């Protein structure tokens, strides 16, 4: 299915909660979703037989000042089409519903986004750090992150 058509289906279903943004090539077009609706949109995308997005390629946390965002790259193996969803939340209350129950692959991706950006995925069954040590402080990939001087008695900077 064409990207425009997928966007049409979504806007028909969700109305104002989604905003398609068709950028000129080479950038991929994406659709902006309100953070609290992301679970419903994803469930619809997966379960609708015409869309059938059964493969989550990538879930990325981003920090585009001043907001934190989550980017979902979805793919349909059956129909061979893809879509990009984006949602932005304020850095003070970065709460996004989890999509872990829709695609199991989201589990570790969301843990990584939490680890790196501190995006709180509401409803995730085990939202703990995945790459950094469990007692690490701060969220390394935020633009305002300052490298700590010391960790467990080891000097960190060169």
């Amino acid at each position: 299915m064409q990207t425009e058509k997928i966007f049409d289906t979504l806007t028909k279903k969700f109305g104002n909660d989604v905003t398609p943004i068709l950028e000129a090539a080479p950038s991929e077009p994406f659709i902006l979703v309100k953070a609290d609706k992301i679970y419903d949109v994803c469930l619809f995308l997966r379960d609708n037989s015409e869309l059938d997005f059964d493969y989550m390629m990538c879930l990325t946390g981003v920090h585009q000042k001043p907001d934190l965002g989550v980017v979902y790259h979805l793919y349909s193996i059956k129909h061979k089409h893809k879509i990009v969803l984006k949602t932005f939340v304020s850095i003070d209350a970065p709460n996004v519903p989890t999509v872990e129950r829709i695609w199991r692959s989201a589990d570790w991706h969301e843990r990584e986004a939490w680890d790196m950006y501190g995006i709180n995925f509401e409803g995730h069954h085990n939202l703990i750090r995945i790459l950094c040590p469990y007692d690490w402080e701060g969220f390394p990939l935020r633009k305002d992150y300052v490298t700590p001087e010391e960790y467990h008695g080891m000097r960190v900077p060169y």
Partner: protein
Amino acid sequence: MAEKKTFEMEYSKVDTERMRLNVGPQHPSTHGVLRLEVELDGEIVTEVVPHMGYLHRCFEKHCEAMTYPQCIPYIDRLDYISSMNNEWPYVMGVEKLMGIEVPERVEYIRVIMAELNRIANHQIAVATFGLDAGAFTPFLYYFRDREEILAILEKASGGRLLYNYFWVGGLAADVHPTFKQECLDVIKHIRATNAEVTNLLIYNKIFIDRTANVGILPADVAINFGCSGPVLRGSGFPLDLRRAEPYSIYDRFDFNVVVGKGEVGTLGDCWDRNIVRMGEMEESCKIIEQAIAQMPDTGDVQEKLPKKIRIPKSEILSRAESPKGDLGFYIVGNGTDKPERLRCRATSFINLSVLPEISKGYMIADLILILGSIDIVLGEVDR
């Protein structure tokens, strides 16, 4: 009947304790520094909790501070067994965002290099998988052949392991004059060793007993977990980006997508994942042969580029089929010569997430084999 019942009741009263065993980070067969927290009931695995991050090298943070060409060496160090394949999706993504086309000769060289590197990667994967099963000798046979492949890659790029060879808009350097003949020679050796290992290891009765019907991964579970590459194809699902969305010039070659068939056990077991890698080596050999036949002898290997590579405010998820599977780079440009965000869709990371699911109920020796059959590289898992 009554007697049997009392026995069972008596037996159930026996107090057994589950043991929590820490496998790794220093363990001979976690393929690096993965740590698995395993709960054991006797020898049976009841729960696996992977803990990673022991090799978290802050790749994404580095890339935000580097210019686009400077990122390539860091990308090499993600999946350090198949560096050429790592560079490709990144370079391709940057080229797409800049809107440049690379010369045809470059595409051919890239294909040959990537396929050679794919073979080297699968050789290590099969070799270490045999090592996990206790067979030491095939490991050395494969490493002997791998040296020949590395010699070719080294002659072209200067590095044995980490190449920094695919540059934005072309290649770091042209290939050497005897390149074609050397490739053809090495293919012969690869095929001979593959035949030997097939006899020595793959169809060995003990090896089949160990790997067949172990770690069964159904295709729908694999897709839901986002698996790709030999892990997904071992379950019988023919998703190969080279065929599904032909990038570069892969539509010009005739090759098969190897899938597991459940030949000696259930579809999607460890043996199937392993045989897919064996089959892919052969397919890669075929692609290399065709590419060498079609490749133009002379031509530029570097497109004219601006002095500073800048990418406008745009973004792309650029994917290519690495030996581990579907490797993607999510590149966000912001108008400067440094990326705003560079995220790696790490294949090993995603393939590994299926491990707790498929290793429950098997023995601890099987757990090691299942981990080996997934073929992870910790550099890519932890980034």
